């Protein structure tokens, strides 16, 4: 039972790290723009397709394809902010929350169907990052891609945390998330921070999509399940809280694996939703989130 438990937990941890990557971008966008981007899963999907594009038809090594795909979707995120979401802040709009939800929902649907239309329902297999099955310990073997994905995700998360807490840009982002007015008073361009946030979100989601691409293959609605997990994580951890997202992600990975062992493997996805609803009912601001100030 020992090896079994550990191997399930390890698998759960791997996924926890990847989900964390997706959730981080979502939580940064929420903290700064107060918008939940329902199209975030599609950034994930685009990251996967981008990796395929760079490694198969263009034949670049996957380790080069990863930053390229991150850069591509970063640009796309900025484009979305500029063209679709900017009016929320620069114009006097009625019911901006409704606008954001419906627009991003519509965007998600559009991106999924555009991919379906132009690339087909087929599953694309990008090149592996680390081909083959690797010995972990004892009788446990896991695929190289899974291990690479977990390791790289941890690195990227660490780098992001470093940027947020140690650089000027990171401090500007945090300032904008605490108070848009206050930030602009001290000379931070809030509009630019919004663009940075979306770009960062795109980058992180794309990284997750690229890392998982060789494992689960790429197809148009590959982003819908991961993004739901990301929603759960940011609610659990507290919307807008970065440490919350990291901790909640690991927690979710663990809950899912333990649930699989002790209750039922089939219900794995249901646990996340139950957690979501439970948290929203009992403690909507999650573990680390701020109580919403409704001024």
């Amino acid at each position: 039972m020992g090896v079994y438990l550990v191997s399930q937990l390890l698998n759960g941890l791997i996924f926890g790290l990847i989900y964390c990557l997706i959730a981080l971008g979502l939580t940064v966008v929420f903290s700064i723009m107060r918008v939940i981007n329902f199209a975030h899963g599609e950034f994930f999907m685009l990251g996967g397709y981008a990796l395929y594009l760079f490694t198969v038809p263009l034949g670049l090594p996957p380790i080069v394809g990863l930053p390229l795909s991150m850069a591509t979707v970063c640009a796309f995120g900025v484009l979305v902010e500029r063209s679709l979401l900017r009016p929320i802040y620069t114009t006097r709009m009625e019911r901006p929350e409704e606008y954001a939800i419906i627009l991003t929902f519509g965007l998600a649907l559009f991106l999924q169907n555009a991919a379906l239309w132009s690339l087909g329902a087929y599953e694309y297999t990008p090149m592996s990052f680390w081909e083959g099955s690797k010995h972990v310990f004892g009788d446990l073997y896991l695929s190289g891609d899974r291990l690479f994905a977990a390791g790289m995700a941890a690195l990227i998360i660490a780098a992001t945390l470093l940027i947020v807490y140690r650089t000027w840009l990171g401090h500007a982002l945090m300032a904008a998330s605490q108070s848009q007015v206050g930030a602009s008073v001290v000379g931070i361009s809030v509009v630019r921070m919004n663009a940075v946030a979306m770009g960062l979100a795109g980058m992180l989601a794309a990284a997750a999509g690229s890392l998982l691409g060789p494992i689960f293959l790429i197809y148009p609605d590959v982003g819908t399940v991961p993004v739901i997990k990301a929603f759960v994580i940011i609610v659990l951890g507290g919307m807008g809280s970065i440490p919350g997202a990291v901790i909640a992600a690991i927690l979710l990975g663990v809950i899912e694996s333990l649930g699989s062992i002790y209750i039922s493997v089939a219900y794995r996805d249901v646990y996340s939703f139950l957690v979501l609803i439970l948290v929203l009912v009992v403690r909507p601001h999650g573990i680390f989130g701020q109580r919403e100030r409704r001024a």
Partner: protein
Amino acid sequence: MQRITTGKTLATMVVAGALAFPAMSAAQDVIKIGGVAPLSSPGSYQQGRELVLGLQWAVDDVNAAGGLLGKKVVLIIEDTEGKPPTGALAIEKLITKDKVVGVAGEYHSSVCTAEIEVFRQHGIPFVIGSCWSDTLTEAGYAEIYRTSVYSSKLAENMVALMMANGIKKVVALVEDTDYGIGIAENIKKSIEKLGAKTSFKYEVVEKTSKDFVPILLKYKTQEKPDMIITAVTQPGGFLVLKQAHEIRFAPSKNTLYLDATCTAQNDKVFWEAVKGAGKYVLMSCPYSPSVQLTPLGEKIKQRYVKEFDRQPNYLPLQGYDAMLALITAIKMAGSTDRKAIVAALADVQVAGTRGDIKFEKESGVWHNQWKDVPTFIFQYSEQDQSAGDANILFPPRFANSEIIRPN
């Protein structure tokens, strides 16, 4: 108050209605036949495409030979997406909008289950292309015929193989559909019926799941079976194999891997997706490109090889046989009257691509079923091997090898 011109308002309303005005139907001197298959997700569209090839070729051949009852045959294909409600709707459309005289095809058993109700309601004949669930013919509907292989027959063969090779412990991972659950139940029944000394357990997974590692880890560390059978159609099926291989569970020295869906026979797609994991995989299939069964079958195989530069899997042939049976019945009936065709199907005897097709009249799974449809069990011995070169393990009269295992 301005005068309200109701004329203008009426005009606007009519415009909206005009959007839906039915297109004029085409010329009347054709016979329309319907074909259904999954051509998009979540259906197994890669298999669906192969099936449609067979349906289309049968229609092309009859047109090339002068048509049916002197008229050209038009094949109308509907994508059933692997979803039962979509399948039922597609049949309604084919029957009520396109006015087809009969339909052949379909690949997913659950979709077939929904579809047969619609055929029965309208009295239109349906020859099943490749839905394997026993229940489809067991239902005993007069309109439903099947030239495809069926689950209980495949299950019996698998159990015979187990008995012949001393396989004692088997687990199965099946999809949550009529086919998946059906084949697991059939294996269980066959073990009892044939008195095999094999323990058998199965688990049902959602067809669209992606991560099977938790279940596979459980099997590897807790169950330790001699064989794992998977009945999960594409694309999930390939992921199961990849992941089973990655954790060094199966195919391995201790555990054999049997693909009960025969999707492994679609060799190009298979090897691209699974790479090294596919070596030593066993598959239970309704056809072998390496076994010459009939002249017609050989002709279709050559046509496929010429067009695609590789050997076909069973689907184009199973599709061809289904459509051939339907077309032959229409010819025998001498008319497009639905009742006449349904009755004529009962007496069809025609040389198909895999044998002589004829339907039984018994009740139970053999009702309107081609009882002697051939079945095989193969095993890949090399990576990137073509389906035709795989070792034949069963039936004994074609077998050319024992089971091989990695060391």
